[in-house]
C-alpha cells in the first residue's frame, strides 16, 4: 500500500494535526512502509473468527445511574489554557 502526498495531507487534516508541506513526502514514505508491513495480515485465515473486543472474559459492569461525585468546576477548569467566568474560551465559531 502506498500513500501519496495528498492522502497524507487528508489524513493529517482528519486527525487535526498541521503537517508542514515539506514534511509530507517523507511522512508518506514512512506511513507507506508501515502499511506495507501490516499487509502480511492478509495471509491469515480469519473466516468466521470474531474480532476481539476484550481480552478479559468478562462483561462490562453496570452501575446505578446516579450522581455520586461532582461540583468541581474550578478544579476542572484549572488546567485550561484560557478560561473566563467558569468557561473554556474558544476561538470565535459563529459569524
Amino acid at each position, binding site marked *: 500500500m502506498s500513500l501519496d502526498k495528498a492522502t497524507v495531507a487528508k489524513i493529517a487534516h482528519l486527525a487535526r494535526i498541521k503537517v508542514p508541506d515539506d514534511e509530507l513526502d517523507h511522512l508518506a514514505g514512512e506511513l507507506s512502509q508501515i502499511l506495507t508491513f501490516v499487509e502480511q495480515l492478509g495471509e491469515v485465515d480469519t473466516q468466521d473468527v470474531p474480532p476481539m473486543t476484550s*481480552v478479559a472474559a468478562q462483561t462490562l459492569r453496570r452501575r446505578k445511574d446516579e450522581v455520586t461525585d461532582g461540583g468541581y468546576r474550578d478544579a476542572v477548569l484549572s488546567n485550561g489554557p484560557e478560561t473566563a467566568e467558569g468557561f473554556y474560551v474558544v476561538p470565535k465559531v459563529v459569524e
Partner: protein
Amino acid sequence: MTGLTHLTMAAALDGLAKKEFTAVELTEAHVKAVETIRPLNAFITETPEQALAMAKASDARRAKGEAGPMEGLPIAVKDLFCTKGVPTTAASHILDGFKPEYESTVTSNLWRDGAVMLGKVNLDEFAMGSANITSHHGNVISPWSPGEVGNWSRQLVPGGSSGGSAAAVAARAALGATGTDTGGSIRQPAAFTGIVGIKPTYGRCSRWGVVAFASSLDQAGPMTRTVEDAAIMLRSMCGFDPKDSTSVDMAVPDFRAALTGDIRGLKVGIPKEYRVEGMPAEIAAIWDQGIEWLKQAGAEPVEISLPHTKYALATYYIVAPAEASSNLARYDGLRYGLRVEGASLKDMYENTRGAGFGKEVRRRILIGTYVLSAGYYDAYYNKARQVRTRIKWDFDEAFKTCDVILTPTAPSTAFAIGEKMDDPIQMYLNDVFTVPASLAGLPGMSVPAGVGSDGLPLGLQLLGRPFDEETILRVGQVIEKAAAVTATPPFMA
C-alpha cells in the same frame, strides 16, 4: 548512608522494622541519589520536599504501629501516572503545564500502603517507543553506558517506553518504579537494564488516572531489582477499581507467599516460533540456559506452538495506533496543556496538535486515523482484531499443555542512541517477543538472566495464564537464583 540505596525493598522493610534506620533517612539517601544520577536524565520532575514529607508521615505511622506493606519505601513514578498537584507530562510538549487535580488509582494504592514518591520519571512520549528517545524532555541514558559519566563512549538506551523507570532503579536512585506496558514497555527496558519488570494480567491494575495510549493493551506494573520486590510492589499496585470499567473484581493474592522456590513438575512451554530467523547466538544460548535451570529445579520443558506469532507485530501496529488516535483526540488546546492560537477553532486544533505532538506520536496517530477511516476499517482494523483473536486462541491452546511459557525478552542487548532510528519497523522489532502476550492480555515478566558478550544485561521472559502472576513470579525467582547475576551498571548512585 549510600548503602541504603543499594538495599532491596525486602531488606529495607526489614531495616525499617528493626529501627536500623528511619524512612526519613532512607528517603534522604535516595533524594541525594536522584541528584547524583541527573546525567542520565531519568527524572522529569524531582519531588524531594514531597518525598521528605511523605517519609516523615511514614515514620509517624510506623511509630503508631500502622505500617503498611510498603511503608517508607522510596519509589519513582513514570510520568504517565497522574499525581495530584505534581506536573504530569507523558513526556509530551502537548501536556506542558498540566497539573492533575486528582491522583491515579495505582499511585493512590502505593501511597495508601506507605510508599514515598521521589519524583516523576522520563519515558517515550505517550509511552510510544522502545528506546526512550521520543521524549520531549530528552533521551534517557542507560547507567550501563560505557565510558566516563556525561562523556560516554557509547550512549546506550535504557529501553522503552519505561526508560526513566528502568534507569532510576538500575542506577540505585529508587528502590522500585512504576511502569506501564502496552507492547513491552515494562519488560523490554527491564531486560536492557538488568532489572525485574512485570506486566500483570490486563485488568489487574486500574488504568484510572494513567494517561491513555492504547486502552485495550495498557497495563501498569512494577519495576524492581529483585523478583521478591516485584511481588511486594505488585500487590500494592493491584486491586479492583470501580472507576476503571475493565478492572477485574478479584482478590489480590499475597504474591510474596507464592515465592516458594518449588517448581517441581511444572510444565514450561517453549514456543518454537520464537526461535526467529537471525536470532543472535547469545540470545539463543541464554534461552537454552534458562530451560536448563528450570529442568534442574524439577520443571519439565515442553515444546509448544504459537502459530500466529509472526503476525503479532503487524496486528499490534494496527490496533495500538487505532486506539491511540482516538485516545489522543482529547488534546485539543482547550482543556489542558499546550494551546497554539489560530484564526479559527479548527486552525487552533491543528496548530496545537501540530506543535504539541512529536514525530513518533504523529506517525502513530496518522496510521490510526487511516486504518479507522471509512473504506479501510474492515481491511485493516477489523482484520487486525480477528488476528488478535487467533493469537489469543494460540495461547489458550498452548496453556492446555503447559503452565508457564519461557522466552527471551528482547532480540538483543541494549543498543546505542542513534542506532535503529531511520527505520520505524526496525525499532518496532524490539517488541517481537513481548507484543503477543500484550495482545492476549496475559501476565508477563522479564528477569535478569545474565550478560551478553558486550557485558550488557540479558533478560528472560515468563508468560502465564490469565491472573496467574503467582506462577511466573515463582518461576522467575528460580531463574533469578540460578542466574545469580552479579554484574552491576558502571554508573550507580
